[in-house]
């Protein structure tokens, strides 16, 4: 059992009031998580005590900085089951990781007429880069449809695989519906069809144990800021063979081995893809976030979130005006998306904010999914280890106030 009050005490922001006497009820972790003091301190410590550029400095603090930066990479690698940290490339975020694959691997290995399969529940970050590449290279894009329950239709997926795709790119966990997709099976089937598989793990890695080697993912992408870490740092994981065959992404310092006026050779992995000075403090902060999650235990994180969702969904469904979307609690993560009959999500979110409750209203960077659900927009509440059942009760009361107000 997690001691939630002890966890909450580690997060300075949870002590603040949104307005006088109105505490913050933060239910928007799916957009970005809050940060514990240890993460904030790790970054402060870097800037106050050993700020230096990494990799080439021979003085003490440069070595300390380099060590901390690489230690963080090792921690993150272990966290997702990867033994060789050189398979992890620091990027700015999940979006940049996916774009990196599209721009380098996609540019080199995808050709006119090639098929890329994505799903109807993709975040724009795993959709638009492929649309851009498809337009440029005249690729074909197909989408695995979702069922009425908000799960992927795997029969349709199998049919699409008969068209011999070159790439299958999909979200491990939907940022709208919370659906946890059967990544291992999706990847196995993709491989059988001869395709490379990319997993958008932005919502999965923060919320339950993920072993990228066991999944046999070819590429995976996730962001620190959704898992207690800072913004501005994310990861691209790739199989070594693929990463080595890819051309570099951005040119500049650190990504090169040798440079002459009329040519260069690229550095080894992972530096080949890390041009310019990296987000060093952020990488170190990411490492501290991993330490925090390891101390809590990802199995415990997942179990607690299940408990919260199983507590919240029946309470929301009980309200006649509320409609909850997505699969049942046991098949999803701690994301609940809902609509209130006759009330616009902006109005829902605004009135909840008056009560200190931070939820998200809109299409959550998944416009095609909303079109599929026949929704203009929705309201989303998402949870993490620092949320309590009392906060769920508070949300339910808030929704009742919204209904009373607008009806």
């Amino acid at each position, binding site marked *: 059992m997690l001691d939630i009050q002890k966890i909450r005490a580690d997060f300075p922001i949870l002590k603040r009031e949104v307005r006088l006497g109105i505490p913050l009820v933060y239910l928007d972790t799916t957009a970005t998580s809050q940060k514990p003091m240890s993460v904030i301190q790790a970054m402060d410590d870097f800037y106050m005590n050993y700020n230096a550029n990494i990799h080439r400095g021979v003085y003490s603090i440069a070595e300390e900085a380099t060590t901390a930066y690489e230690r963080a990479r090792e921690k993150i690698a272990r966290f997702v089951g990867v033994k060789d940290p050189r398979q992890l490339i620091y990027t700015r975020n999940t979006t940049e990781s996916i774009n990196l694959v599209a721009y380098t691997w996609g540019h080199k290995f995808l050709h006119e007429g090639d098929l890329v399969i994505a799903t109807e529940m993709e975040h724009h970050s795993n959709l638009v880069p492929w649309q851009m590449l498809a337009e440029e290279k005249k690729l074909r894009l197909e989408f695995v449809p979702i069922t009425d329950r908000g799960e992927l239709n795997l029969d349709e997926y199998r049919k699409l695989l008969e068209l011999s795709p070159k790439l299958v790119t999909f979200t491990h966990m939907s940022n709208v519906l919370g659906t946890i997709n059967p990544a291992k099976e999706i990847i196995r089937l993709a491989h059988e069809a001869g395709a490379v598989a990319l997993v958008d793990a932005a919502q999965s890695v923060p919320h339950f144990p993920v072993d990228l080697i066991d999944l046999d993912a070819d590429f995976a992408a996730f962001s620190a800021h959704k898992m207690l870490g800072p913004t501005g740092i994310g990861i691209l994981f790739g199989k070594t063979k693929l990463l080595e065959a890819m051309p570099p992404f951005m040119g500049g310092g650190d990504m090169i081995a040798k440079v002459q006026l009329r040519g260069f050779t690229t550095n080894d992995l992972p530096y080949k893809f890390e041009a310019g000075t990296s987000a060093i403090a952020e990488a170190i902060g990411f490492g501290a976030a991993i330490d925090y999650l390891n101390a809590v235990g990802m199995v415990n994180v997942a179990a607690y979130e299940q408990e919260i969702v199983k507590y919240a969904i029946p309470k929301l469904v009980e309200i006649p005006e509320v409609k909850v979307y997505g699969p049942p609690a046991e098949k999803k993560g701690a994301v609940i998306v809902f609509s209130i009959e006759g009330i*616009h*999500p*902006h*109005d829902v979110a*605004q*009135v909840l904010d*008056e009560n200190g409750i931070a939820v998200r*209203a*809109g*299409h959550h960077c998944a*416009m095609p999914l*909303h079109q599929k659900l026949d929704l*203009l*927009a929705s309201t989303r509440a998402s949870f993490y280890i620092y949320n309590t059942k009392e906060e769920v009760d508070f949300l339910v009361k808030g929704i009742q106030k919204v209904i009373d*107000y*607008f009806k």
Partner: protein
Amino acid sequence: MDDLYRELIIERYKNPQFKGTLDPHDYSFTDENPLCGDEIRIDLRLGEDQRVKEAAFSGHGCAISQASADLLLESIIGKTLDEVKVLNKQNVLDNLGIELGPVRLKCALLGLKVLKAGVYGLGEATDDLVED
């Protein structure tokens, strides 16, 4: 809550005075706020004196965007198109009588954007139409 949703806004949201469509019309324009999918269509009919005689809006949106469009149309009855063209953000905020943050401001200004794009005969409603 009382600050943002003044009685006037809630009242206009629940009982709009200018909701509907006009057919035929002299001007009609539709556009959306892609952030939230809200969509507003505004139709105008001019009188013989070339002033706005009738106005109507349709579409869907939050309380702020709907009430704002309703109050906007009320304010332009009897105005010439030149007078409509010079309306700006401040006029909308004055109609509503509230302060708005950047996200909700987009909701409030959707009606004005659509109205001005319509009377200017533009292909799309752009943000610079509603700047001061």
